[in-house]
Every structure is written in C-alpha cells, then in structure tokens.
C-alpha cells in the first residue's frame, strides 16, 4: 500500500482504467485484448505492460485461444481484482471525504 493507503498496483491512470473497464463486465465475462485496447486507448506494448503488472498482483487473468489469425487473447478481472477495486474505491472515498472536511 502507498502512504495514503491506495493500492499502488491500481493507483495509476492506465491500470485504473483497465480495472474499471473490466469491472463493468458481468461476472464470468472476459474481454478481448483488441477491444480493451480500443476502449483504453493504449498502444499494445503499454497495455501488455500494465496487464502484466495487474496479472502479477493476481487482479486479472489473460488467456490465449487459437493460433495464427484466429488467435484471441482475452482478459478478465479476478475476484481478487474486483475486491481490490472495491477497497481502492472505499479508501478513495474516505480520502475525498476527509479532504472535504479539512
């Protein structure tokens, strides 16, 4: 955790966008790498970098199906990732509330 209690794995604009986008999917759904890239607006290389960091933390899973032109990499938020986003949102709300009061 960072000093202010925000999960540093999520607390980065690109990774926050990735996690929030994947959280908008229904439980049990995944998203293709291409569509995620289109929605987030990152280069493939940058997206891979951020996904790897999230994957290392156990927040997302990626799976590659097929080969050649039919290959499809899909990305999904794990239960742990969804819980981490909820924690992050709670801490963020507390920070904003305390800033409002201060």
């Amino acid at each position, binding site marked *: 955790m960072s000093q202010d209690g925000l999960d540093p794995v999520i607390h980065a604009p690109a990774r926050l966008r990735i996690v929030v986008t994947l959280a908008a999917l229904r439980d049990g759904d995944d998203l293709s790498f291409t569509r995620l890239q289109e929605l987030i607006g990152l280069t493939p290389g940058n997206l891979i970098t951020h996904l790897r*960091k999230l994957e290392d933390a156990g927040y997302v899973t990626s799976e590659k199906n097929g080969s050649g032109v039919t290959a499809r990499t899909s990305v999904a938020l794990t239960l742990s990732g969804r819980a981490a986003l909820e924690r992050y949102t709670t801490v963020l709300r507390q920070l904003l509330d305390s800033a409002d009061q201060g």
Partner: protein
Amino acid sequence: MNGTADTTGGAGMDEAAATDDGSPMGAAEAAAIIRETGQRARQQFRVSHRVTFTIWGFGLLLGYGALWLAARGQRPFHGPDPAAFATVVLLANASAAAGLLSARAEDGVGGLSAVRQRIYFLSVFAGLAAMFALEGALVRAGAGRPAIGVFEASAPVLVAGLFYVITSAVWLDWPVLGLGIWLVVAAAAGGFAGPAGVWGVDALAAGLAYLVMAVIEPWVRQS
C-alpha cells in the same frame, strides 16, 4: 503474455501513477477516472434494447397488420399467402438488424455472456423449428386452414414470449419478464379472434407492447 519493458517502477507511487502532465495522480483525478471510465464502459457494453424493441414493434405492427388486412373478410378462409412472404422477409430483416446491434455491443466480450447468447439463439431456433414442424403435423392430421391460420399467427408470438420469460429468469430483468408474460397472454388470447382476427390482435398487442418497452426502457433502467 508477451510484454515490453515495464515503464513502471520506483518506490511508493510508481511513475505510471502520474497523470499526463507528469504530476502524481490525486484522489480527485482518480475519482474522475473511475466515474468517466465506468460510465463509458457500461455504455459500450450495453446492448441498445430500445432500438431492438422499436424494430420488433414496427416489424410486428406492419407485418402482422399487413397479414390481417390480407386475410380479413375471406370467405372461405384461405390464409394470407403473399403477405406471409413479406412478413417473413420483414421479420427476418428486423431480426438481423437487432442481432447486428447486439453484436456490436458484445463485440470482444466472451465468457458466460457469450455462452448464454448461444443458448438463447439455440432456444429461439429450436422453438421456431418445432413450431414449423408442429404446423406440418397439424396439416398432416387433417387440421383445416382456419386452425392452421390461428396457429401460424400465435405460435411465433408464444415462442418470443417464452424466450423473454427465460431471459428474465437468467438476468432477473423485470421489464422483460412483463413483456414475456404479455406476449404469452396475447398469443393465447389472440387465437380466439379467429384465423384472420388473430393477426390484427397480435399486431396490436405484441407490436404495441414492444413499442411501449422501447419508450419506457431507458426510464425503467434508470429508476
């Protein structure tokens, strides 16, 4: 996953946590990202039921309405054959358009939703195939043209109604459950209007129900 060198790193807040202008991302910026990204993602993944309902509403009103106009007053009843063809084309086009709209929203989305989608299509296909088979069985059993007429008008509405009831059971979608039950009732009650009248009753009852759903759907979802 093949990756490039990680651009993140460092103690505490990594450099990827910085905003576009290089300053560290604050709580307010993070909250704005969550709000805007979440809203955009939900919008992108959401199938426009409003457009789908409108297409089906006008499809039924015009298609079934045309069949009613073609069949009413027939003595003896022989069925609206030329208009039936037009209806099939119209409904097929509506179905294809609705399917394409759905496909765009669900483009790239896999997992359970994709499996459910295939099961839905399979159930509709099986229902319609069984309907045509039963119609053949009725003809073979000696059913008259009026009885066949009632069946061929009401059965598709019944299949659609049951489809929506099943859909609502999966997603706990109450407006869709209402539509499904209404279509089932309309299909059953419409048959009592006779082989010509059933087209008119189903056109109004089912077609207008779809249009009402198209009007109220965004409001119902928000409340």
